[in-house]
């Protein structure tokens, strides 16, 4: 099977899901990225990426029960699949390989 590499935003989302745990849903995923990376997250873009990841079998989602504070709308919990973890590792490996081949960057990271 060909390796699947993630974009930077997809990688952040996959890592955020793994960091948050089994109760990872949109708000917590966005919050984790914003607080950790300092990058502002557009929820619509996050869901577009999550849908794309799910279509590719990299994450799986399940629907929770609706709650009043969400206007009766259910949370959508996400979990990274085995394939998603493999894709994150492949992406990490590819980036590190490229990183190591750049002397200017290697010098700054002893």
């Amino acid at each position, binding site marked *: 099977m060909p390796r699947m590499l993630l974009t930077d935003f997809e990688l952040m989302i996959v890592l955020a899901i793994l960091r948050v745990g089994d109760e990872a849903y949109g708000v917590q995923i966005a919050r984790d990225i914003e607080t950790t990376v300092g990058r502002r997250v557009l929820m619509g873009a996050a869901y577009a990426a999550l849908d794309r990841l799910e279509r590719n079998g990299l994450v799986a989602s399940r629907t929770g029960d609706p709650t009043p504070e969400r*206007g009766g709308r259910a949370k959508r919990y996400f979990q990274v*699949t085995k394939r998603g973890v493999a894709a994150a590792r492949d992406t990490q490996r590819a980036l590190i390989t490229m990183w190591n081949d750049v002397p200017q960057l290697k010098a700054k990271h002893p």
Partner: protein
Amino acid sequence: MMPRSSSSLAIALLERVVPDSDALAGDLLEQVGNGRSPAWLWTQVLAAVVTALVNPTDDIRPLKLVELQPADAIERSRRFNLQSCQINLTASPLHGAGGLTLALFGVLLTQLASVLWWVLLLSIVAGTLLGIGLIVCHRRASARSPFVFEGLVPRYASRSALVLAMVVASSAAFAQTPTPAPARSSRPAFDVSSVKINTGGGRGGAIQPGRFAQSAVTLRQLIRLAYGSNQIVGGPGWIESDRFDVEGKGTFDLRGFLPGPNGTPPAVYQMLQQLLEDRFTLAVHTAIQDRPVYALLMARRDQQAGSQLTRSAFDCEALLAATVGGRLPAPPPQAALPRCAVGGAPGHLMADSIEMSQLAAALSPFTDRVVLNRTNLPGRFNVDLQWTPELTGPAPTPSANAAATDAPPALVTAIQEQLGLKLEPITAPIEVLVIDNANRPTPN
């Protein structure tokens, strides 16, 4: 605090333009409730709208389905027929884009030929009138909207296993067939009914001639039972927490728990609907929403089933006729599953002589999604499926999650290895039951 109307307008725009945006809308509302500003909400909504317009999802469209997946196309067409007032004049896959496009066209036209300003004015007036007409038409249709029963898999108690299992099995089959619910005026009602706040008794139930009872049951569970829908949206929070003891008595036998000859809902469940309306002032309507579901498919290229999915030649129709006719067969051996039934617990699903549609319905509660049968396997099967159920309780640590995700998803893998089937995540239009109103019950 953000004005409610502004928040509602933003969310309405989001749900109108962005398909399958229920969870996103909920996330945004939750964050607004936690103090996010109106500007933040509108920024998020507009960005989501732009994202959806620029990157449209692979929404299932009828014309494509006719070519690729006839079964889905037929299913979708059938469902759209139930919503006779949903008209997309522009055939645009993005709801709402048609109107915006027309408005933009009108503005451009007035720029090119200013004397044609009246075209824009006429368009706005005509569009407004058309919108009002469609809303009125939709509300009238909703008032007589037929209920669709799908995915009903009540779990039954073991003490009345045989009779109840037959009811469950036939109800699951009934649940796969869309059937209109009778109008309120023609709906039967219990002769005597009782609704009490549960004071500590355990969960249980009784299905007997002339008596229907459920103890320690939530309103959500009752709605699921009465309307045969696993996809319930909305309602106050207490419908999942408050527990009640419900009992109804009337003139019916075991046939009252079975679908009618024309596929009408079981009479007892119609009585339960009436009881919920009377005592909980429950009001519901159905809507079609694109939701994430699982398609149950053959996993192997040779289309062979797994070792735990074996064909059954048992005549369930004859057994069902004998059961409701009072000629009960001998009870099954201890710990054995009744014939033509499905049962089990999280981690173990057993079924005797069920159809694949019933298996799909039985798997739904364990996946938190509706499972649609796409196997095209005819006939009946015996099933013995074992898997490691997902853990519930406090959220595990991130490291635990990472370790868990290294392991294959237990149920999915079990289905593939043991049954030769697979669950494929897709988005499909399904009926959801929307709770418009519910109140705690009035005293008896």
